[in-house]
């Protein structure tokens, strides 16, 4: 007999825990959270640095501490969590196959499924960096795990490709552990990390940031010995004659995160190519009824606080669905227009919105000042001026249900830089 649950959350990281707790808090009794690792908290466990929780707890704390707070709350609400359990397949009918050493392979049925599956790091393979294949090339997160969870050092002379936050955090972390970090190269003309991390991870430690530079060759037969770094042109192509060489034994790659959506793909859930995660509506429901998505498996966040927030909303979406079923009305698409990379959610049912809906979006290049316009056809729904926008910081905009009640077509988010010619 197949075991049935009202809701199953796949993933016990920051998103999964928040979703599971919210489900319990809102009267859903039989909730199961499935986590592949031997502890909950996911990637937070290796993010030992400070800076989490300002929105959620009104104080700054470390990643493990943030996870610990949720773990304690999960215990309070009696959240059922299966550790060391890997979901192998999910299906359109909301059956879920998982495996663990205690039970072997098991298939269960859920009324609602929340995907909180996290993301993986872009790596050397995807970048196709030319050269040899020595040991000593790691993704930043991999090195972070070795250092912060396993307690091992990966190298002494370090270069970092990519100015994503994990790379910046790792630059400081490696310096504090006695390694020398020779520099960070970023292929774009601006950093992809949060401004505060540039300040406290690079500037505090005098680590140079090479903007518009990338690694163009890797040398070393057994262990990394040297890398070649070149300047790139506007089309991001390396410029001959600009090569610099660094004799390092370690190269960390912090070149982007990609939502891990093998399970969702297999089940036939529609992905939004802009976020590489599921397309979701105002309740974070995916294209297949009863599936919800949140966390870095939906789109990559820069702040765990927003992961928590969206996971709670996805859980509320699931609660709403379990009570009311799926919305019957026609949906409107929410599209990124000029200057905007993506929006989440990327479609809404205007009359299904419970009080408010918040849109998260990213702009495509740093601007000192810009006008954000949200429109439906010719009609401007909102227009605001914002300062110091960067792609690495997610923007948010809240709408009341009544403000969108008479929307009847696609909604577009646009960003236009304000120029200050004096």
């Amino acid at each position, binding site marked *: 007999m197949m075991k049935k649950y009202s809701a199953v959350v796949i993933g016990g990281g920051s998103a999964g825990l928040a979703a599971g707790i919210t489900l319990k808090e809102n009267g859903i009794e039989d909730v199961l959270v499935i986590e592949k690792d031997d502890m909950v908290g996911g990637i937070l*466990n290796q993010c*030992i*640095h*400070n*800076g989490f929780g*300002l929105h959620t707890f009104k104080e*700054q*704390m*470390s*990643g*493990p*501490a943030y*996870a*610990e707070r949720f773990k*304690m709350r999960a215990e309070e609400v009696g959240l059922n969590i299966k550790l060391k359990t890997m979901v192998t397949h999910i299906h359109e009918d909301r059956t879920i196959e998982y495996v663990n050493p205690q039970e072997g392979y098991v298939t269960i049925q859920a009324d609602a499924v929340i995907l909180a599956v996290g993301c993986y790091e872009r790596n050397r393979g995807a970048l196709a960096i030319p050269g040899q294949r020595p040991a000593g090339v790691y993704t930043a997160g991999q090195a972070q795990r070795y*250092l*912060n*969870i*396993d*307690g091992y050092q990966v190298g002494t002379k370090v270069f970092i490709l990519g100015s994503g936050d994990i790379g910046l955090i790792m630059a400081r972390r490696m310096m*504090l552990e006695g390694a020398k970090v020779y520099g960070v190269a970023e292929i774009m003309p601006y950093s992809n990390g*949060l*401004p*505060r991390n*540039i*300040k*406290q991870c690079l*500037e*505090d430690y005098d680590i140079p940031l090479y903007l518009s530079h990338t690694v163009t060759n890797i040398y070393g037969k057994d262990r990394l010995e040297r890398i070649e770094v070149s300047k790139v042109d506007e089309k991001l192509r390396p410029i001959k004659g600009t090569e610099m060489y660094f004799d390092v034994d370690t190269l960390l790659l912090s070149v982007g995160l990609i939502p891990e959506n093998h399970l969702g793909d297999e089940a036939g859930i529609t992905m939004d190519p802009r976020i590489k995660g599921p397309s979701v509506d105002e309740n974070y429901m995916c294209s297949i009824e009863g599936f919800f998505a949140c966390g870095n498996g939906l789109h990559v966040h*820069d*702040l765990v606080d927003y992961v928590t927030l969206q996971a709670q909303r996805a859980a509320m979406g699931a609660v709403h669905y379990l009570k009311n079923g799926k919305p019957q009305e026609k949906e409107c698409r929410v599209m990124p227009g000029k200057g905007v990379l993506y929006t989440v959610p990327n479609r809404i049912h205007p009359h299904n919105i419970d009080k408010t809906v918040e849109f998260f979006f990213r702009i495509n290049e740093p601007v000192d000042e810009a006008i954000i316009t949200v429109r439906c056809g010719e009609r401007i729904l909102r227009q605001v001026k914002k300062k*110091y926008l960067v792609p690495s*910081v997610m923007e948010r905009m809240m709408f009341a249900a009544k403000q969108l009640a008479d929307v009847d077509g696609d909604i577009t988010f646009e960003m236009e830089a304000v120029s200050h010619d004096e």
Partner: protein
Amino acid sequence: MTNKVLTCVGCPAGCRINVEMEGDEIRTITGNTCPVGEQYARQEAVCPMRILTSTVRITGCPYRVLPVTTDREIPLASVDEVMEIIRSTVVEAPVSFEQVLIENVLDTGANVIASKSMPAA
């Protein structure tokens, strides 16, 4: 008169704050969007302070290291010395969440505390 442009680390917004100084004296602070920013700028201009996070060696559990953090900011200039102390610290499981592991480290007034609980094996 000297000008310092600071990136606030008080929150993820990372405001750019302009501090006008005359000698050691702060004349004006502009560009911050909240009181945290002003406080940060005032401190940063004279003595930068940072939260320090790291790991200590732990025994008596399946893990080799335990994440730790200072429970308040310490002078950036003393980070290296505090790291020395953290490096030579060994704790034994069980450890409770936010348990004080090193009291008033290097007389900074900050304690080094556990970032997570760790039950014994």
